């Protein structure tokens, strides 16, 4: 589904990613963990082209492969396809504050996919009901709690019918009592076979839901495997240190 090869990302002299390879299969839930600054969010943002990378390539099934250094014209063309197939959920939700909950979800299907308003609204209602917000259709984002906003953001991403959904620390900005409702929705999604790539610190979620856990450190993946292996019996010293730190965190 996703094939990342030799990905290099630099910010000036700083090498954030130094030749990352990553494979995510259809139906898989890939969880990326790592200390802050390890490049996990950057890796995620390279997959749907929010970051420009300097080396390597990213290929999404059904779209052209995006190579580093390709002309802007090619890049926009490839990303136009990629972004329709890859949804994203942000740490800060990034809902459109000037639109209602329902409009947040129907905006892209209507204006990107050309769906009729009625059809888009039907689907949006169903999705919002699925994330438990069927009653808040006419609210503005700022009238919702953080957890509710993040669930709207998930519904908004799902409305495009994406093959893959990228989650960039979806619960990091939430109070602890709200993380549960968001992780619950994500767990349901995973059970339904949605391919997901999740950057998170929520270890319990990783243990219960992940197919594969990738540990990032110093700009590359240092260890990959099923949660039972990586989380319970890590090979690398860095992974052990990370798990200890995460366990100590509130």
């Amino acid at each position, binding site marked *: 589904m996703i094939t990342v090869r030799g990905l290099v990302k630099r910010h000036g002299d700083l090498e954030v990613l130094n030749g990352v390879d990553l494979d995510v299969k259809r139906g898989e839930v890939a969880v990326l963990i790592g200390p802050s600054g390890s490049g996990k969010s950057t890796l995620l943002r390279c997959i*749907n*082209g*929010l970051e420009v990378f300097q080396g390597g390539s990213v290929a999404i099934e059904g779209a052209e492969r995006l190579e580093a250094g390709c002309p802007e014209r090619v890049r*926009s063309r490839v*990303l*136009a396809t990629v*972004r*329709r197939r*890859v*949804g*994203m959920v*942000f740490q*800060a939700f*990034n*809902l*459109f*504050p*000037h639109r*209602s909950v329902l409009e947040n979800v129907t*905006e*892209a299907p209507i*204006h*990107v*996919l050309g769906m009729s308003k009625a059809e888009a609204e039907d689907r949006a209602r169903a999705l919002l009901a699925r994330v438990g917000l069927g009653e808040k259709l*006419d*609210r*503005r984002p700022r*009238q919702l709690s953080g957890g509710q906003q993040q669930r709207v*953001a998930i519904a*908004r*991403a799902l409305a*495009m019918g994406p093959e893959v959904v*990228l989650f960039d620390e979806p619960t990091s900005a939430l109070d602890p009592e709200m993380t549960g409702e968001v992780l619950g929705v994500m767990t349901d999604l995973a059970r339904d076979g949605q391919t997901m790539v999740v950057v998170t610190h929520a270890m319990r979620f990783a243990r219960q839901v992940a197919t594969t856990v990738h540990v990032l450190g110093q700009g590359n993946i240092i260890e990959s495997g099923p949660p039972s292996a990586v989380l319970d019996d890590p090979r690398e010293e860095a992974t052990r240190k990370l798990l200890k730190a995460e366990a100590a965190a509130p």
Partner: protein
Amino acid sequence: MEHGPRDDSARPRLSTSRFVLLLLLAVLFGPINAFADALNDVRGRGALRWGADEEGGAPFVFRDREDPNRLVGFEAELMERIARELNVESRFDQAQWDQLLPYLERGGVDVVVNGYEWTAQRARRYLATRPYFAYQFQLLVRRDGPVHCWADLRMPKSGGGRWRVGVLIGSASLTTAEQLGGPAVEVITFPGATDAMLAARNGQIDATLQDLAASQYYLNRPEFTELGAAGPPEGLGYYVMYLRPGDEKLRDAIDATIVSLIDSGELKTIYQRYGIWTPAQELLAKYQRREATLVGQEGRWLDPSMLARFLPSLLTSAGMTVLLSVASFPLAVLLGLVIAIGRLHAPRPIAMVLGAYVELIRGTPLMFQLFVLFYLLPELGLVLPALAAGIAGLAINYSAYEAEIYRAGLQAIPDGQMEAALSLGMSRRLALGRVIVPQAVRIVIPPVTNDFIALFKDTSVCSVITLTELTKQYSILANTYGGVIEFGLAAALLYMVMSLPLSWFSRWFEARLNAEESAGGAS
């Protein structure tokens, strides 16, 4: 013409704030006329203070080409002689021409000397001296044009429409042109004599009626070689000096000096030096005061019926103000939005060009831009009608300001909004149109409304390109008929009446957007 020819340089028009201040001053200081005779003050001070506008230029009052510290011109020399006769120093005071009489009233100067013709309206309010110059007008046309004398202007114009004749704003040439011209003539007022000559040369108007003396002076300049005199001189009138009522002694002293200058031939010598001695000047010697004075016959205040009579012309010019505003501002906003988006999202070279555009437009005055559009573009072959030039000038000038406001508004939207839109498959353009700009609009409404009100008042600058909007109409009426305060208050009231609804509308619009955002707020 009652005012001298001017330089082509821009002349600041009366801004609304200055205009209100002036009204206040006029109200506060107006009544302090009943002083002892100014002649005692002049002697006590040792200086005769006289007011004129240097922008009137040659041959009236201007700076010596060789020595810019030296004031020359036939009026300056005349005042020099009169002051010497009174054994005092001649002290020149600069003021905008159409503000000279209010300035006199306030006590800023003792006498105003700047090509003011004698009119009954002015004589009711001010004390006039005996004439010191007999003016006549000369019609100037393009040598290759269809007009050769006034008779041509009374015949229909080929191709329909009316003949367009330019005159200096507030001058006697305006009334003369209106009297001479029939239904086939449209009289257009210009801020300066040379502006009207430029417009005639460019073909924007068919002819211009100019002071005979000044036109001879200016026709020699290289930029006016295409222009020539058409027909004999027209009209005849006297330039007089004006003083405050009650200053009869000073007036009589000035009159006596003028008579002695005429009798001694000194006046002729001065006028010949400036090339303005015309046969008509012989009339100056024959002049005899026919009545003691007209001052006070109708009181200081304008007849209210006068205000009623000219209310329609004030309203018409207010309509021009509104037209200029509502036509130009949407263009400015649209252009500004495109520029702001271009600066933030277009490729670097385009963004840099747009940045330079903003700096250029913000860095030059609106009046200068209007001059370029109306008087200079014709040199490049693009002749814009005044209304189009006015609308374009305002739109271009304000587009730079709107662009900066929009740029700030767009930058205030968090990056996450664009990222969210892009990750949903939107193109940059769609994301801007559906997500970014709608949010930015809400942020910029208050500053944009501010600018609309500012533009609304800046329409008064369009008078420099012959558009008669409210401020100019006020200026024309107050100069022609007196009533600075009455017409001024009426104009100020009209401005207020027009701009208040704007503020209300903007507040309502903002409230509506806010209400829309919190729609469904009740849980």
